[in-house]
């Protein structure tokens, strides 16, 4: 599994990448593998507000429905429209083409609650056992 070290992680298996002060959000390689074939992604509308550790949308695999938790609070600036027609991008490219939303953060302090790649790797290894 691939956990790049330029991004931060949640224990709910989302990631966030800080780009010019904005937060780009998606789900991790571990999450997409666990879910299996992703067939539907429901995202918030541009302009809506998301709250840290509250659901921002859902991702559905063939078998299951899972909430996506927002790693940070703020206003949604962009959503990945492509996922509506090609949800499998979350499987094939979880950190690049499979990104979900970009958020203008309200409080950068929230980032301190998130895990580094090293911490997340360890967390996932423990979860597997």
């Amino acid at each position: 599994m691939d956990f790049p070290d330029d991004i931060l992680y949640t224990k709910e298996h989302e990631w966030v990448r800080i780009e010019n002060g904005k937060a780009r959000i998606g789900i991790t390689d571990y999450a997409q593998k666990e879910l299996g074939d992703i067939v539907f992604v429901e995202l918030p509308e541009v302009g809506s507000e998301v709250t840290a550790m509250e659901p921002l949308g859902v991702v559905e695999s063939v078998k299951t429905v899972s909430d996506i938790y927002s790693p940070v609070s703020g206003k949604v600036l962009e959503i990945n429209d492509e996922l509506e027609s090609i949800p499998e991008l979350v499987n094939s490219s979880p950190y690049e083409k499979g990104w979900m939303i970009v958020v203008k953060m309200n409080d950068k302090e929230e980032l301190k609650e998130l895990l580094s790649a090293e911490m997340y790797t360890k967390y996932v290894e423990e979860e597997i056992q």
Partner: protein
Amino acid sequence: MGFPKLKRTSLYEAHKSLKAKMINFNGWEMPLQYSGILDEHRAVRSSVGIFDVSHMGEIIIKGRDAFNLLQFLITNDVSKLKDNGCQYSVMCYPDGGIVDDLIIYRFSSEEFMLCVNASNTEKDYQWILGNLDTAKLKASVTNVSVDNISDTISQISIQGKSAEAVLQKISDIDLSVIRHYCFKKCNIDSAESIVSRTGYTGEDGFEIYSKDNVVGIWDRLLEKGKEYSIKPVGLGARDTLRLEMKYPLYGNDINEKTTPLEADLGWVVKFDKGDFIGKDVLKKQSETGATQKLVGFEIIDKGIPRPHYPIFKEKERIGEVTSGTLSPSLGRGIGIGYVKTEVSTVGEEIDIEIRGGYQKAKIVSTPFYKGRG
């Protein structure tokens, strides 16, 4: 103290070496998927796949009165079944609720095998034993033995248009002589087996029952099937394949509270064959009409129906989804569920409540997957 240990099939190690994702399915540790549900689904629809279904139960009913016992226990007419024939049926409680759905295999007029759902095997076996006295009284059943042989039998299903070509390579008889819903005893990879042309996918295919050499059969099918791009298929794709055909799944779509008439299984209930358990209630229901019916629907726009999502018609709740998925073949959300009979006709527009919002859906003719035609 400890959790009950999950049961494993003879193919457990084979699944592990194929890197299957395993799940607890009603107390059995079974493969959910290998390469992925969509990939496995497509393999079966386009060529061929194999399934380990050894968790299914097998019960042998034998003796001079075996036929009479079966006629009394199940709703279909066993007199229509010939030697080497299979028949789909349900077994009901006196109130018409379903004990299980099953396939009957007739070896002779005095020997039958029932293939039953894994989760129901023990319940079915006890139900049959518990009704022997009643059967003696009401159907003159005296000479019969009932054996649950599930622990000694493994079952592999091979499904898809290339199934016959692959299985033929390790079979000692000409499989083309086995017609739909018929079976033969033969050797598969030198192991004594029962091979029936049956399945749970809507494709042509076979189910192989064997006591010995199950791992050998599995490995040889994967090896011989390479030229047909054979894939091992887990319970995930087994579910999407059966749902595209609207084949009911016990526990989801049918249970002890639903009758076969409500479940759209009236075709396996034969009132003109003599007495059977549940007949009185079912006869009455067939005369007055069932108040709910199991229908298939497609989501018109977007969204995927899931079990227990409420179904509405003009804001009135008319039922509940029992199974739903994204149909890999149609690329749309499909589902089945019970709705009030007066709003159960094909073409009826309904709403499925998904996460608090209504999604438009339409009752459609089934199977959803019309396939090869």
